[in-house]
């Protein structure tokens, strides 16, 4: 039997890894949670209409080509592609458990590539749980899957994705009312020290960003930068987003508020596998630890590779390259004759080019302290409705870390299993106790990674 590699996630990283491995003669099973490949960034790319592709821009077009190529290789007898599959458990001994349409199933693997992508950073601010308040990513998903732009929006937070979405909304004919940004000119000046290490290719990203800003300006969309004390309230049938702009208190009203303050690796699966994680102060996130080729560092889990934004936030273009790197490393590990060391080395060099861009963006669009370390009545844990003040009280009472805070307050114990409060809670402990984030750590994540009913579990056949 040929080597069997499992791949979790058919985003840019998973798709590019799959293509290389199948072409090299490897047998693969690739699971993805969505009905069509692409991940969130290239969501629906293989079936998107031409006008939608034009509206979303040339980066999405890269995804269209990649997704179509991926679908072609899924025809191969060695490739098993399972869409609509939620992975609820990965066993370090080499078994993946998933669920499709209320049926559970499992497969064994010799090696596993996890390309499960990123989550939007939690943005705990007053009113972030109100209906109509969503992530910028959510609005993009709606656009990509239903070709429907949200009308009457205000964009809130920091990061280049705000500009991209603003431009997409402008092109759809529904420009946002305003963009309320937390980063300031000082951040931009500080970040510019990374510019000299960029080459023409990576500088092109910045040029594109400047183009977006000019489109936004031309469309007459008002940008407020360096704002503080953002609050969202429900007033009659719409949302009021109020904030401090310098010394002035301002507000804008809209039907929807779209939040974004960068993305962070989705570490639920890597944590459940006891892979080491380290605090990344640049992106303000916990990143799983790997070697340079993406092989995960863990005392218990062997032959697990991590690729794409789930390993480290570098964006879609870098994720495609990192998928190719891990595929090459898999070929090396399992002694495939098609392994090409020169190719792997060259790919590494290509991926490294994205590092200065990321360092620039990290510094320029650093999430605001208010969001990282919230206070007062702001809800920290959306599921269990635990407020910042409750978390602070529990820390003062002696809760030692994130896992004890669960017992004290129930934070992180709801349906999302801490995905949207974990980073906040760790940061709050670190600030209150003046500790390093690596010392504080994170929630202990256990199987099932997605809720599963007993009825569904009973469909399991050995």
């Amino acid at each position, binding site marked *: 039997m040929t080597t069997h590699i499992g791949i979790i996630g058919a985003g840019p990283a998973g798709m590019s890894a799959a293509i290389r491995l199948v072409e090299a003669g490897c047998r693969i099973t690739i699971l993805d949670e969505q009905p069509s490949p692409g991940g969130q960034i290239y969501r629906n790319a293989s079936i998107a209409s031409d006008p939608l592709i034009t509206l979303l821009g040339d980066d999405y077009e890269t995804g269209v080509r990649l997704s179509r190529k991926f679908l072609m290789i899924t025809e191969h007898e060695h490739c098993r592609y399972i869409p609509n599959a939620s992975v609820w458990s990965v066993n370090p001994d080499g078994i993946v458990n998933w669920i499709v349409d209320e049926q559970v199933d499992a497969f064994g693997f010799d090696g596993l590539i996890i390309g499960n992508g990123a989550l939007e950073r939690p943005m705990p601010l007053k009113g972030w749980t109100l209906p109509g308040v969503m992530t910028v990513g959510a609005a993009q998903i709606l656009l990509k899957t239903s070709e429907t732009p949200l009308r009457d929006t205000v964009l809130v937070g920091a990061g280049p994705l705000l500009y991209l979405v603003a431009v997409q909304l402008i092109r759809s004919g529904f420009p946002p009312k305003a963009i309320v940004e937390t980063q300031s000119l000082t951040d931009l000046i500080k970040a510019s020290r990374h510019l000299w290490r960029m080459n023409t290719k990576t500088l092109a990203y910045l040029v594109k960003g400047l183009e977006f800003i000019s489109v936004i300006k031309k469309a007459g969309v008002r940008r407020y930068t360096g704002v503080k004390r953002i609050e969202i309230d429900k007033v009659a049938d719409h949302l009021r987003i109020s904030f401090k702009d310098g010394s002035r208190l301002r507000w804008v009203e809209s039907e929807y508020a779209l939040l974004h303050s960068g993305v962070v690796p989705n570490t639920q699966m890597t944590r459940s596998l006891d892979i080491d994680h380290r605090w990344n102060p640049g992106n303000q996130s916990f990143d799983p630890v790997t070697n340079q080729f993406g092989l995960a560092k863990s005392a218990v889990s062997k032959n697990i590779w991590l690729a794409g934004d789930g390993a480290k936030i570098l964006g879609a273009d870098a994720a495609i390259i990192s998928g190719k790197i891990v595929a090459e490393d898999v070929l090396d590990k399992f002694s495939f004759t098609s392994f090409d060391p020169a190719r792997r080395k060259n790919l590494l060099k290509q991926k490294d080019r994205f590092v200065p861009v990321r360092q620039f963006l990290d510094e320029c669009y650093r999430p605001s302290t208010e969001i990282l370390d919230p206070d007062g009545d702001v809800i920290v844990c959306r599921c269990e409705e635990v407020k910042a003040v409750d978390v602070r009280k529990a820390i003062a009472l002696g809760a030692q870390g994130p896992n004890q805070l669960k017992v004290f307050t129930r934070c992180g114990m709801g*349906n999302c299993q801490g995905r949207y409060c974990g980073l906040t809670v760790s940061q709050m402990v670190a600030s209150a106790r003046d500790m390093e984030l690596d010392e504080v750590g994170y929630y202990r994540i256990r199987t099932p990674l997605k809720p599963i009913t007993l009825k569904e579990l009973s469909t399991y056949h050995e």
Partner: protein
Amino acid sequence: MQPPVLVFEDQEFNFESGASVAAVLLINGVCEFRTTQVGGVARGPYCMMGACFDCLVEIDGVPNRQACMTPARDGMRVKRQDHRTFLMDLGG
């Protein structure tokens, strides 16, 4: 051919095949999908990618379904989920 229809509470929404339940509701102006078990307050979709679990609704009598992860199907009956009533029912 008749376009597919999803029934939400007592309203009927047409939709394009491939749309998720959450997308169909949002496009039709519905933002409030459920009320929470702790505070009894209204919630709607936040992430649209299966991570936040704030879009839970009752679909064809089955509670706690993720609206953003469930493709809309013709004749589907979707209801807002009141988590307090749901928990009380569980407790008998």
